[in-house]
């Protein structure tokens, strides 16, 4: 198959994989573009090239999870038996369990009795399982934990590939943890907890009238018990690790490490590529190392030399031919129209990619053809991995 090619640097995932300096590969992009698939494909390829790899997936499609041996939801890495280990590498796969990850943070940082208190707190339960941003926050948290795992004093994995949560916007992965952090460190929550702190009194004096009215109104709407739960929760977390925001910033800093490589994934459509270009610009601003753009699910044609218009014209000329038993001219015409459809789509894709290239000429990119069906097994992941070398 051939695609329309552009004069840009080719992103070759093998260069990343082969360099032992690459310790983390993060796959980002807007919803449904193929982040999970790309992460799995890169991980399989790296393992088969001899690296000791862990892949952290988030909400993989059921069949892909099965292909990776992840029948059960597992926050712990399990070996993927189907990868070829002859080059000396290995692959462990896992799915992010955000509630478990959050619980572990609490268990690891708080005294046992206090930890149980927090885990039972209804406010904690809501925040840890459903608040927007928790998944992003916990993905970063889990990544930090994996990077820190040691066996015999050496890192347990020499490459960690991370998928990112499904969200509307790719930027959420970078922004949501901070947002959640600032929120939990926010003014109202501080006010609620202020009386519990040393020095809170003076502060309280100045604003007490306001606080009284505000808390009163909130208590009426939400119930006094609820406010009390929030207070306990925030106070408990505070003593645990002096602020969520700080912690989010620490994990964020890990990503600025030169051993990290970001792969921005997009489909060859306007919206996805627009998201990708915001994300690329943002990575540059934050000083985060971008490896390049993966354009996934690009429509390819088997007969690039036959244009859509020419194929349709040929099909039309067959419409008048008398029909035959077995394969008839109408079937030949149908094949030509099918090709025309695909050729048109492939021209649209090329144009969308071309617009991205024009605005970001120095970003390396690689195109992955759209497979005829969903990607569900290791063999199909190998094929995607092969495409990711730009070969």
């Amino acid at each position, binding site marked *: 198959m051939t695609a329309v090619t552009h004069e840009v640097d080719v992103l070759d995932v093998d260069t990343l994989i082969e360099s032992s300096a690459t310790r983390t590969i993060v796959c980002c992009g807007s*919803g*449904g573009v193929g982040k999970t698939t790309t992460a799995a494909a890169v991980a399989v390829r790296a393992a088969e090239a001899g690296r000791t790899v862990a892949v952290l997936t988030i909400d993989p499609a059921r069949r892909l999870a099965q292909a990776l041996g992840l029948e059960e939801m597992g926050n712990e890495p399990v070996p993927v038996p189907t990868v070829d280990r002859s080059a000396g590498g290995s692959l462990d796969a896992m799915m992010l369990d955000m509630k478990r990850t959050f619980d572990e943070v609490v268990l690891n940082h708080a005294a046992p009795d206090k930890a149980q208190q927090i885990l039972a707190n*209804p406010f904690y339960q809501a925040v840890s399982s459903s608040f927007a941003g928790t998944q992003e926050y916990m993905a970063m948290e889990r990544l930090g934990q994996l990077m820190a795992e040691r066996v015999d004093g050496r890192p347990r994995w020499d490459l960690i590939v991370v998928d990112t949560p499904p969200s509307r916007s790719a930027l959420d992965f970078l922004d949501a943890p901070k947002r959640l952090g600032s929120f939990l460190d926010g003014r*109202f929550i501080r006010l609620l907890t202020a009386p519990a702190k040393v020095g809170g009194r003076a502060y309280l004096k100045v604003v007490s009238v306001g606080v009284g009215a*505000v808390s009163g109104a909130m208590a009426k709407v939400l119930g006094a018990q609820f406010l009390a739960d929030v207070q306990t929760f925030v106070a408990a977390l505070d003593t645990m690790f002096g602020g969520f925001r700080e912690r989010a910033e620490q994990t964020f800093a890990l990503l600025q490490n030169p051993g990290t490589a970001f792969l921005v994934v997009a489909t060859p459509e306007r919206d996805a590529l627009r998201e990708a270009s915001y994300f690329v610009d943002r990575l540059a601003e934050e000083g985060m190392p971008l490896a390049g753009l993966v354009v996934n699910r690009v429509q390819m044609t*088997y007969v690039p030399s*036959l244009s859509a218009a020419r194929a349709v014209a040929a099909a039309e000329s067959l419409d008048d031919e008398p029909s035959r038993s077995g394969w008839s001219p109408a079937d030949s015409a149908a094949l*030509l129209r099918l*090709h025309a459809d695909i050729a048109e789509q492939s021209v649209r894709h090329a144009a969308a990619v071309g617009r991205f290239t024009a605005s970001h000429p120095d970003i390396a990119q690689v195109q992955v053809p759209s497979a005829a069906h*969903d990607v569900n097994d290791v063999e199909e992941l190998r094929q995607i991995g092969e495409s990711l070398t730009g070969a």
Partner: protein
Amino acid sequence: MSDRRPTSSDWAGVRLHIVSGKGGTGKTTVAAALAMALATEGSRVLLVEVEARQGISQTFDVPQLGEEERRVARGLHGGEVVGLSVDAKAALMEYLQMFYKLGRAGGMLERFGVVDFATTIAPGVRDVLLIGKVYEAVGRREGKRRGGDRTYDAVVLDAPPTGRIGRFLNVNHEVAGLAKVGPVRQQADSITRLLQSPQTVVHLVTLLEEMPVQETIDAAAELERIGMRVGAIIVNQERQPLLSPQAVATLREDPDGTTLLEKDLGSAGLRVGPVLTGGLVQTGLDLGDRLELEAQERAEIARLERPTYHLPLLRDGLDAGGLRELADALAGQGICANQDESEGTAG
């Protein structure tokens, strides 16, 4: 197994149509088309979005919607579609004013970040506020008296995606940790009554792909568990198979038997060679693979035994004409039959 064909009385009595589905499958588009289809002669349909993404104004290509309800389109048959983008903060302020006559304290709440707090993090409050607004619109009548005409004949809600829909609609459970009495709680109870009544259905939009179908199945089970009725399954972006099943079978049986194909290509004036013939055959085989997978997904959908509607993939994207085409398809498949009998008794 073929899917359940809609009948003309499926949605008789339904006043609140909630549209969900996996992200990106076409919820906003389908909700818009549905609202147009429901807006028959002389009727008014309210189309509501709750994620503040301006999906409605973009879909209809009209200026951004604020807190006011504004006409965004004419319905298919002379009715009108009114758009509303509900904002949780505005809903909270409106709500506090209504119940507490807060006056200046309202501004204070905003300054202290309380409004932010209540609308983003307090579990469930945000959802109760958003659905509360929808609830209010469903029951609203012209004039002050209870006997006045209904303001809207139907309300269509462009709802959160399947991953969040159960939690979003399960307001009662959501506020369980909150006040046991008091206005939020009472509001939640009335909302739940409406949501569980025959006046409400949740339609699920899907594509013929593994993940959207799987999420549809999961969501259907979850909705039933929380006492809600699953309405239609709407298969969006369907592609017409260009090649007949017999032609696919012929290609599969003998991919190398290309004599007749080559003869046709030659008489159509094309230069015949292995790239052309082999390429076209492979194109046909790929389509065969895809159709087979789609058939599997169709069978999964059929197992849900819900009325199923089919919408074509519009090649030229979605302009005003495209939206009408989708609305027409829904109407043609019977989604708005018996609209006139739908006047029920709302809570």
